[in-house]
């Protein structure tokens, strides 16, 4: 296998140095390291062009997803893999949204890590089996990216809720996902239904579908067919 230039973003220096040595015999060469997102973005601004990004940002969550989106925007062809010790569904969902190619646990053996990375370079997606099982049963959703423009005077929150509706999420799941209370979800939902003139959540979701909210599906043939039917 051709050598692969990897960029390691991890706050733990000892881990970075250790991994670098462990991967010495593998095709994966840690060409650059960064301890945090700011350093990482700086390096990329200065012309770093890795083929593979391994990252674990301390706080995970929003910061990580945001960081991944920014890296993704600058390095559209690089593969991105989260390498963490934290088995967390929300983090997985965020990572998928931001276009991650894998989510690996730090307690992998170095052989299995190299193996996984090789598969990622071939275009496979590698996940912990238990998280992947949740993904399939629909308890974790990988969504499209945020929609830049709002329509019909919808707030960003309302658009987020619409996108959850498209996944068929219950109010409870929406509340969890957006980190707000269920009562707040209901309030948003009510004003949302009024604004788009829908009489129930299913109609709202179908409206979202026909109006291209939900990222990946905009422009799909089925959507236009559905729109024509009304």
């Amino acid at each position, binding site marked *: 296998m051709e050598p692969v230039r990897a960029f390691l973003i991890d706050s733990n220096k000892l881990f970075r140095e250790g991994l670098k040595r462990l991967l010495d015999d593998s095709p994966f060469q840690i060409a650059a390291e960064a301890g945090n997102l700011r350093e990482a973005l700086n390096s990329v601004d200065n012309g770093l062009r890795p083929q593979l990004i391994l990252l674990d940002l301390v706080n995970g969550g929003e910061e990580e997803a945001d960081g991944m989106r920014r890296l993704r925007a600058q390095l559209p062809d690089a593969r991105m893999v989260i390498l963490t010790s934290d088995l967390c569904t929300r983090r997985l969902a965020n990572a998928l949204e931001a276009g991650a190619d894998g989510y690996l646990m730090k307690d992998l053996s170095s052989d299995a890590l190299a193996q996984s990375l090789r598969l990622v370079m071939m275009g496979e*997606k590698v996940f912990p089996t238990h998280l992947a099982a949740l993904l399939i049963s629909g308890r974790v959703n990988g969504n499209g990216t945020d929609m830049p423009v709002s329509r019909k005077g919808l707030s960003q929150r309302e658009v987020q809720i619409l996108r959850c509706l498209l996944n068929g999420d219950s109010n409870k799941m929406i509340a969890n996902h957006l980190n707000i209370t269920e009562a707040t979800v209901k309030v948003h939902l009510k004003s949302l239904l009024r604004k788009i003139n829908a009489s129930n959540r299913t109609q709202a979701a179908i409206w979202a579908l026909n109006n291209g909210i939900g990222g990946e599906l905009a422009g799909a043939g089925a959507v236009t067919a559905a729109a024509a039917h009304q």
Partner: protein
Amino acid sequence: MQMNHEYAQEKASHSTRNAVTPMHVCLILDNSSLTDTVVQALDRAGRHRVTVFHDISELTQSTLTPDAILIGLQQFTALRENEPMVYLRLSRRSRIVVVLSSRELLDAAHILAFADAWVFEDINVDRINELLDLGLEGHCLMPKQFLSRLGVDEIRLTLLPRLSEPEFETLRLLGQGLNNRTIANQLDLSEAVIKSMVRSVLSKLHFRNRTEAGVFAARQQGALQSAREGMVPPQMHAAPAHRTGTS
């Protein structure tokens, strides 16, 4: 499940250390042609000792303790449902890798978390050797198509022939965001009947709620009818006399 995972990792570190001895893999698959395919794929790497069984009882009666058990979905489902203690014993000694086809994904979703990894016979069985290595350490490959809604929709479309005619019509109308009463009026059935139709649509196609079903029906509106008919044997095409075809 969390515990299960930690336990799994503990086991993993054992098996990777002695990479010198070949890994012992037991096959208990649902059909013999699949068994041939998998055996060939395993042989190609030549790293494994392979034993083929026809059902679980053969394995449990033997004294073997394989490193990994490659098991067909049907066998695995039966094992989980009928013999939980045997499952538990096996899963302590060996890693369990379930072999299934992508069509079975939605039916199997609830049970996949109990396996250490999964292989899709129609997607990535050629990567079985890598998958076994990853499975030993609690990771698996997720086929790309399952990460997109359209990919999952496609699997659902293949399940449409399961629905009865009124259930199918109910699904269609759910795709217009109608409530039960309106659906009842349109189909000339009682609201109680529609309620049960909706329930069986949800369970047969594995939707969590009517919104998910409605979104699916709206998104795939153009494909519903043909997906349903594509699977129906020819003699049944003549039967539906009063279908209100829209798409």
